[in-house]
C-alpha cells in the first residue's frame, strides 16, 4: 500500500500544482484578492503532498520492498543502511522526485515567509513556479513513475552501482539539486517581475537570498563532487572537464554572475534588464545540466538509464521553459526602464567586468560541452573536446577574473578615481610581482598559467582582506565579511590548483612485500597484502607504513574491491592528509612474480582546492545571514513605524 499511497500523493501534488498555476493566472487577470489568498495555501499543500510522496519512496527503499521495480533495480537487502537511504535518489526516477520535492518545498517556503515582495509579483512568481513543477510532475507520472510495481516479485534486488556506494552520494546530488532548484526560484521571481513589470531594487532584494542560497549549494555540490571523483576514481585528478562536471559548472558560473549583478540591482537599481537575462540564463543552464546528465546523451555513472523517450521529454521541457522565458524577456524588456547610471571606473563597472568575464567563460564551457553532441547529431562524426581546449580557453580568462575580483571591492559605487584605486591596491600588486619573481627564480617546470595563478593567488589572498582595512571591524556588516571570506576562498582554491598542477610528485612501481618506495620526503614500506571483507564486497588490501621525513609512522591501506552482486571491481585509494599536502596511494594488479603495482602521488596543498570551495560557500552563507537579518530588522522597523502612525 505504501507505493500506492505515494503515487496518490504525487498525483494530488500534481493536481495542486495545476490549481496553483490556474489560480495565479486567473487571479492576476481578474485582480481578485481571494485568489491571492488561496494560492498561498495551495502552494503549501502542494509542498506537503510532494514531500509525503518522497518520504514514502525513502521508506520503500529502507524496508527493501522488492515488489517495487525501482527498489529492485537499485537496491539489495544486504546493502548498508545509508546506501539504502541514499539509493533513493541514486537513480533516475528517485532523483527527479527529489528535484520536484525540493521545488515544492521552496514554493511552500516562499508562500509562507516572503513578505517584502509586492503581492502581485509574488502571485506571478508562485504561478511560474507551479508551471515549472508541472513539467516535472508530467515527466514523473507519464514516463518515469517511481512507484511502479513489479510482478513477479523477485527474491532480491540488483544492488546499487558500486561506484555510487559511497557516503558522498548521500550528500552530493541533494546539494546540487538544492542549487538547481534555487535557481528555478530565482527564475520564477524574474518571470513574476517581468509579468507585473515590477523590476527594481525591492524585487532584487527578495530574489537575492534565493540566488545566494542556490549558489552556496552549487558551490558545495561542486566541491564535494570534485573531492568525490578525486578519491573514488583513483586517478589522482580533481577535475576532468567531463560533460557531467560541466553540467554543474555552467549553472554555477551563471549563478555567480547573477549573484553579482543582483547586488548592483539591489544596491544601485542598475543593470535591470541584464539581471533578468541572467536569471533566465542561470535557470536554463540548470535545465541543460539536468538534460545532459539525465537524458542518457552522455554515458557515465550519472546517466542512470539510457532511454530516448526521457531524453526527448526533458528536451521538450527545456525548449518550453527557456523558449517561453526568452520570449517573455523579449516582449517585456522594452518596458523595463533604464536603471541608474554609473561611470566605467566604479564598483558597478567592476561588477560588469565580472559579469562579462563570467559570461564569456560560461559561453566557452557551453560550446566545448555541446559542440561534440551537435556535430554528432548533424554529421554523425564523433569527436571529443577535452581538457586541452577547456584549459586553454578558460584559464587566462579565469585569471583575469580573479584580478578583477581583487580590485572590484575596493572601488566606490557610481564613480571613482583610477589613481585612488591604484593607491589602494598597490600593496597586493607589489606582493603579486614579488611572488611572480620569486617563483620564476626558484622553481622549475611551472607552466605559465600555473605560475601566474599561484602569484596572483598570493596577491589576491592579501587583497581580499583589503575591504576591511581601516574599518571598524565590529561595525562592518556581516555580508562584507561574507564577501571577504568568499573572495579569500577563491584565492585559496586557486593556490591549491596551481600547486597541485606544478608540484605533484608521482611514482609507479611494481613492489614485493618488504620493498620500500620513496616519494618526495615520504618513505613507504610495503608490509603485506591481505584479503579483507566488507558487508557486500571482498577486497585485497595492501598494508603500507608511511613516514614523512623521520616523523611518525602512519598505516595506510589501499584496496581493490570486488562487488559480487554487480561483478564489478573498484579501486579504493588510501589518502593521508598533512597540513602541506596529501599522500595518495592506489593499489593495482599483482603479477606472477608476487609483485603488486603501487602508484603513489604526493600532492602539495591539493586539499586547499576543497578548503577554498568550503570557504567560498561559508562566505556566501555569512552574506545570506547578514542580508536576511538586515531585511528582517528593516521590516520590523517599518512595521513599528506604521503601527505608531
Amino acid at each position, binding site marked *: 500500500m505504501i507505493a500506492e499511497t505515494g503515487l496518490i500523493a504525487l498525483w494530488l501534488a500534481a493536481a495542486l500544482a495545476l490549481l496553483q498555476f490556474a489560480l495565479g493566472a486567473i487571479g492576476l487577470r481578474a485582480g481578485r484578492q481571494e485568489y491571492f489568498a488561496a494560492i498561498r495555501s495551495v502552494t503549501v499543500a502542494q509542498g506537503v503532498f510532494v514531500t509525503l510522496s518522497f518520504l514514502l519512496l525513502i521508506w520503500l527503499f529502507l524496508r527493501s520492498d522488492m515488489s517495487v521495480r525501482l527498489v529492485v533495480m537499485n537496491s539489495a537487502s544486504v546493502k548498508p543502511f545509508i546506501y539504502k537511504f541514499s539509493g533513493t535518489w541514486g537513480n533516475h526516477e528517485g532523483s527527479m522526485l527529489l528535484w520536484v520535492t525540493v521545488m515544492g518545498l521552496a514554493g511552500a517556503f516562499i508562500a509562507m515567509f516572503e513578505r517584502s515582495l509586492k503581492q502581485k509579483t509574488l502571485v506571478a512568481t508562485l504561478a511560474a513556479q507551479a508551471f515549472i513543477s508541472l513539467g516535472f510532475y508530467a515527466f514523473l507520472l507519464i514516463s518515469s513513475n517511481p512507484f511502479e510495481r513489479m510482478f513477479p516479485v523477485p527474491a532480491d534486488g540488483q544492488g546499487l552501482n558500486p*561506484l555510487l556506494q559511497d557516503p558522498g552520494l548521500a550528500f552530493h546530488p541533494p546539494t546540487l539539486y538544492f542549487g538547481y532548484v534555487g535557481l528555478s526560484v530565482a527564475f520564477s521571481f524574474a518571470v513574476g517581475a517581468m509579468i507585473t513589470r515590477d523590476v527594481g531594487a525591492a524585487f532584487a532584494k527578495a530574489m537575492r537570498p534565493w540566488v545566494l542560497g542556490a549558489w552556496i549549494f552549487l558551490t558545495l555540490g561542486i566541491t564535494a563532487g570534485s573531492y568525490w571523483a578525486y578519491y573514488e576514481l*583513483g*586517478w589522482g585528478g580533481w577535475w576532468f572537464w567531463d560533460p557531467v562536471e560541466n553540467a554543474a559548472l555552467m549553472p554555477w558560473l551563471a549563478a555567480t554572475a547573477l549573484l553579482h549583478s543582483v547586488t548592483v540591482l539591489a544596491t544601485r537599481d542598475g543593470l535591470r534588464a541584464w539581471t533578468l537575462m541572467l536569471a533566465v540564463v542561470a535557470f536554463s543552464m540548470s535545465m541543460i545540466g539536468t538534460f545532459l546528465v539525465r537524458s542518457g546523451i*552522455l*554515458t*557515465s*555513472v550519472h546517466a542512470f538509464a539510457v532511454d530516448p523517450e526521457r531524453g526527448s521529454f526533458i528536451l521538450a521541457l527545456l525548449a518550453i521553459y527557456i523558449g517561453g522565458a526568452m520570449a517573455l524577456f523579449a516582449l517585456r524588456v522594452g518596458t523595463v526602464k533604464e536603471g541608474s*547610471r554609473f*561611470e*566605467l571606473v566604479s564598483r558597478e563597472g567592476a561588477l*560588469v567586468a565580472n559579469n*562579462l*568575464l563570467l559570461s*564569456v567563460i560560461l*559561453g*566557452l564551457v557551453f*560550446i*566545448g560541452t555541446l*559542440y*561534440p553532441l551537435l*556535430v554528432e547529431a548533424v554529421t554523425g562524426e*564523433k*569527436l*571529443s*573536446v*577535452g*581538457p*586541452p*581546449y577547456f584549459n*586553454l*580557453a578558460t584559464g587566462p*580568462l579565469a585569471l583575469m577574473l580573479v584580478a578583477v575580483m581583487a580590485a572590484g571591492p575596493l572601488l566606490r559605487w557610481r564613480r571613482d578615481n583610477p589613481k585612488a584605486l591604484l593607491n589602494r591596491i598597490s600593496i597586493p600588486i607589489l606582493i603579486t610581482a614579488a611572488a611572480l619573481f620569486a617563483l620564476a627564480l626558484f622553481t622549475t617546470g611551472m607552466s605559465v598559467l600555473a605560475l601566474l595563478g599561484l602569484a596572483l593567488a598570493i596577491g589576491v589572498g592579501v587583497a581580499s582582506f583589503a575591504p576591511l582595512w581601516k574599518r571598524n571591524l565590529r561595525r562592518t556588516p556581516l555580508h562584507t565579511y561574507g564577501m571577504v571570506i568568499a573572495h579569500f576562498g577563491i584565492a585559496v582554491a586557486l593556490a591549491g590548483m596551481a600547486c597541485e598542477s606544478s608540484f605533484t610528485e608521482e611514482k*609507479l*612501481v*611494481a613492489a614485493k612485500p618488504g620493498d620500500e618506495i620513496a616519494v618526495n620526503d615520504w618513505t613507504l614500506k610495503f608490509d603485506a597484502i591481505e584479503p579483507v571483507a566488507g558487508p557486500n564486497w571482498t577486497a585485497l588490501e595492501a598494508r603500507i607504513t608511511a613516514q614523512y621525513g623521520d616523523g611518525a609512522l602512519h598505516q595506510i591501506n589501499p584496496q*581493490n574491491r570486488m562487488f559480487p552482486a*554487480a*561483478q*564489478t*571491481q*573498484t*579501486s579504493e585509494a588510501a589518502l593521508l592528509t598533512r597540513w602541506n599536502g596529501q599522500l595518495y596511494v*592506489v593499489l*593495482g*594488479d599483482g*603479477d606472477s*612474480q608476487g*609483485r603488486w*603495482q603501487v*602508484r603513489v602521488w604526493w600532492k602539495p596543498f591539493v586539499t586547499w582546492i576543497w578548503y577554498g570551495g568550503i570557504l567560498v560557500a561559508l562566505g556566501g552563507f555569512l552574506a545570506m545571514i547578514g542580508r536576511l537579518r538586515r531585511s528582517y530588522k528593516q521590516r520590523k522597523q517599518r512595521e513599528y513605524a506604521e503601527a505608531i502612525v
Partner: protein
Amino acid sequence: MKAKHQRLTLALLALVALVGAGLLGAYALQDQASYFYTPSDIVEKKPEAGTAIRLGGMVEEGSIERSADGVTVHFIVQDGTARQKVTYTGITPDLFVEGSGVVADGRLDGQGLFVAETLLAKHDENYIPRELEGIDMTSSEHKTETLVQ
C-alpha cells in the same frame, strides 16, 4: 561622460569581449576538436607527434604484453581496419582486457608509437565510452550480422 557615450562604451566592451571569446574558442576548438582519433583516423590524418589526442578502439586479441618492470604495458588498439601500437605506464583499469573497448589520452611519439597517459576501459555492460558506441565491439560478431543481412 554622457549617457549615450557610456552605453556605447559598454556595448563596445561587451562586443569586444564576445568577439575575443569567439575567436579564442574557435582557435582552441580548431586545434582540439579533432581530439578523438580511431586507429584509422591516425592513418588518414596523422596528428603531429606531441599533440594531445584521445585514441579509442578495441584492444586486439593477444596483443597485451606486460614488460619486466611490472608497470608498463604494450598493446595494440584496432578498429577493424587499422592498428595502433600503444604503450602505457600505470595501473590498468579493472576491465582492461583483450577484445574490449578502450579510450586512451596521450600523444604520438616520433616513431608513431602512442604513449598513453590515462586509460579508460569499458566499466561494465552499462557503460561504454561515448566515442566507442557504434564501433564494432567484436569484429567477428559484426561480420556474421552483415552476412545475415
